[in-house]
């Protein structure tokens, strides 16, 4: 790549500003995502010029920088407002969660249309996928900071604060206060390990016994796939490589999931302890915590925990005086892409690329970060591992079922009296969970988020576990009052928005499913459309490249199977109804010509 890097450096103003932002951000952290974040924050967008500058400074092809900017939701090529407001569109913490369209309301008060920046550049507004505040009602991000428990009165105050250009630090601090809402504590939540106790137990055991304790415990990945953690660590350890890596997947983007938010906030020591145990077992010197962009507000806290652990000798060179045992952790923050929760897409993102899932095999455990053997585990998995090393595999196995040892931490939201964090032994029934969280008249529960399973009341005696209802932790309750079709449409929009675009079935299929559902929901669908939906959903599920596509159609397939009436009651009883609505297509012409008389309509 021949890049004329100094072409603009002499021109004053923006060029100089861009250059200094890049240089400063790069000195702090050379990661592409972090440099782009600094630009987005300070310039409110990432211009073509900035893309070229970044490419030159980081010695990357400008096409790669361009591709990354366009891939992640929180980077923009068109300037955002000085107040950039993003409403969650999740069914639990979205702008419609309270039954009122809060986004439309704010838009009206600020005189701004969604997905736009106001002419004066003061404010922009839009929506974003679930921001993990589902136990706190409607929520938004303003310049990356979450504001929770939104209501009509707050919307009016927000509009006033924005118009008055009040700095964020002077907004009511209580709005930004995100409580943990831990309702039921079990094995892992009862106590945060005091720093270092797990590591001392680990050193006493030695590498072999540490690994065998993890294997013996029967611990399986808490992200949802349920692969044996001990086996993963052992496989990684056995692979030759120039380096081994430990990666924590803290990119929980599944709508309705917020347990990692709480774990990162209140159990960070246990998490870093677990990552260090893994490093000891597999022989890694470097670890990464991949934090979802929506949780950037937790970054200062996490950094301070890392600093303290270094001071205590729990990270760094010769940890706890053990010669040769060196390990440290860096935090990489994402920028709004659900797909990066898929482990190989996460690794691509760590490497400063678009989050496109890799071809597997080979798996990350042999060819992961920078092509080297890499363990990628969920936040909860690492925390469980830290406890197991301290308390032993027998202690862990004593809880749960034979195939699903230990406990599961659930994020419960939706139509229940007490949304929050619940930790249960595996094997608990859905009915028990619903009783505990005060869900009085549930008609359906979404287990494991949109990519999981939608079940009805007939199945509430099923049990949580890898051999029955597997879950990454999201549990959304829908009462009899809910229109399930609205929920399913919401999920279809989510997947179409989050598809990475790599493979044809998911890239095109999720959009076709979204359009088809919109047609049915708007009262234009026929029996034929339902059959098409079934056929297409099956194809997307069976033929997509990665887990996103393979699960994207689940809400539709589950809905068609278990709740066919929610679709059927919207159908028009004709053989065929075209997708194309001629009268609607004339709407723009009517608007331009200021006509709305009968002659300006078809039919």
């Amino acid at each position, binding site marked *: 790549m021949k890049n004329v890097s100094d072409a603009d450096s002499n021109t004053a103003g923006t060029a100089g500003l861009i250059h200094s932002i890049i240089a400063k951000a790069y000195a702090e952290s050379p990661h592409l995502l972090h440099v782009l974040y600094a630009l987005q924050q300070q310039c409110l967008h990432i211009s073509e010029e900035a893309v*070229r500058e970044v490419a030159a400074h980081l010695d990357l092809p400008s096409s790669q920088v*361009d591709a990354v900017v366009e891939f992640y939701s929180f980077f923009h090529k068109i300037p955002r407002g000085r107040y950039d407001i993003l409403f969650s569109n999740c069914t639990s913490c979205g702008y419609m969660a309270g039954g009122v369209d809060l986004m439309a309301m704010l838009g009206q008060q600020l005189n701004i249309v969604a997905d736009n920046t106001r002419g004066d550049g003061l404010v922009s507004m839009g929506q974003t996928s679930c921001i993990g505040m589902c136990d706190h009602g409607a929520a938004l991000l303003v310049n990356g900071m979450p504001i929770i428990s939104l209501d009509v009165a707050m919307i009016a105050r927000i509009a006033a604060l924005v118009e008055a250009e009040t700095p964020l630090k002077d907004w009511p601090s209580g709005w930004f206060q995100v409580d943990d809402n831990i309702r039921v504590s079990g094995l892992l939540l009862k106590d945060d390990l005091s720093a270092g106790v797990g590591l001392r137990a680990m050193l006493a055991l030695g590498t072999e016994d540490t690994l065998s304790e993890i294997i013996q415990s029967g611990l399986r990945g808490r992200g949802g796939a349920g692969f044996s953690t001990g086996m993963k660590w052992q496989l990684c350890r056995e692979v030759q490589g120039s380096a081994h890596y430990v990666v924590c997947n803290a990119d929980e983007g599944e709508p309705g999931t917020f347990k990692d938010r709480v774990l990162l906030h209140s159990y960070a020591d246990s998490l870093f302890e677990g990552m260090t145990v893994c490093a000891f077992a597999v022989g890694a010197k470097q670890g990464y915590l991949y934090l979802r962009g929506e949780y950037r507000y937790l970054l200062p806290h996490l950094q301070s925990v890392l600093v303290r652990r270094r001071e205590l000798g729990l990270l760094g060179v010769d940890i706890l005086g053990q010669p040769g045992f060196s390990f440290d952790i860096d935090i990489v923050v994402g920028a709004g*892409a659900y797909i990066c929760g898929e482990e190989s897409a996460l690794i691509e993102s760590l490497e400063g690329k*678009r989050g496109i899932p890799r071809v597997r095999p*080979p798996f990350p455990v042999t060819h992961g970060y920078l092509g080297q053997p890499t363990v990628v585990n969920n936040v909860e998995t690492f925390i469980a591992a830290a406890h197991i090393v301290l308390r032993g595999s027998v202690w862990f196995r004593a809880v749960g079922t034979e195939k699903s040892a230990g406990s599961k931490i659930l994020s419960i939201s939706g139509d229940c009296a007490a949304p929050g964090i619940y930790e249960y032994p595996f094997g608990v029934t859905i009915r028990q969970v619903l009783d505990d969280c005060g869900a009085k008249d549930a008609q359906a529960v979404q287990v494991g988020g949109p990519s999981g399973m939608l079940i009805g009341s007939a199945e509430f005696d099923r049990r949580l576990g890898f051999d029955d209802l597997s879950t990454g932790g999201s549990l959304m309750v829908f009462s009899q009052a809910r229109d399930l079709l609205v929920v399913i449409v919401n999920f279809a929009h989510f997947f179409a928005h989050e598809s990475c*675009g790599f493979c044809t079935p998911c*890239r095109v*299929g999720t959009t076709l499913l979204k359009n088809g559902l919109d047609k049915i929901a708007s009262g234009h669908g026929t029996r034929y459309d339902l059959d098409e939906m079934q056929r297409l959903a099956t194809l997307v599920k069976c033929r997509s*490249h990665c887990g996103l596509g393979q699960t994207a159609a689940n809400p539709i397939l589950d809905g068609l199977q278990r709740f066919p009436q929610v679709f059927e009651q919207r159908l028009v009883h004709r053989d065929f109804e075209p997708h194309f609505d001629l009268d609607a297509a004339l709407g723009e012409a009517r608007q331009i010509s200021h006509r709305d008389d009968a002659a300006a309509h078809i039919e």
Partner: protein
Amino acid sequence: MSADTKQNLITQNTITIDGQEIPFQAGQTIMDAALAAGVYIPHLCHRQGLTPHGSCKLCVVDIASRSASSHNSNRRLQAKFAVDADSRSASACTMPAVAGQQISNNTPALNEVRKTITQMLFIEGNHICPSCEKCGDCTLQAMAYHLGMLDGHFPQFFQHREVDASHPTIMLDRDRCILCELCVRASREVDGKNVFAIAGRGINAHLVVNSASGKLVDSDLETSDMAAHICPVGAILIKEHGYEVPIGQRTFDLHQVSEIGLEKIILTKARQPDE
């Protein structure tokens, strides 16, 4: 995969595709083995000699689960949780051949899936075959005929896509791009350049050019590059060489897409002095 390939070259083994036993060598994918044996598995994003990609999904096959297998692999563990316990879907171009695999390929059900995927590719872009220079040499068009596709079936997306006519000798019409990344890989792996990349996400994914202006003219693409010729559709075309081969005498007027080794024939149709 390639590191230990050489050692195992001697041990030959077989897979079975639609009942036909086919030998393979360690390190080969199902696609490699099939093509070497003259068995056609439909594909658009695959080209021998380039890193397999697995994005178009035309090469989906079903591999029967081996319940009585002596191998104890992690994959069997995962298969237990698969919804369909009888077989699992795989991309033939990226899935390594493993001894004893029972593979379904040329079945009505799989060809129906492939037809739907081909329709998806048609309606997502803007493909106007009769006015396209690539007509008759286009692998997407030939695939549609091969699979008995009669229409796009789904509503057109009518996406806005940019044309780049800046380069003096090469044309980039993104309306026809199917995101197969053959040009991306050919440029990197064969031409030793890095002219193309994919940007954007989901349905907004699109081909971008690696140059300061984002225009082809400022890239180092040349007509002698493989990337300038490898496009299976009419997204990348050589300028001033339109319709030199008349309709009726083009590649797929004379050949079936299922014939193996057509790549060279398509290239000669472009009448360029390379290769």
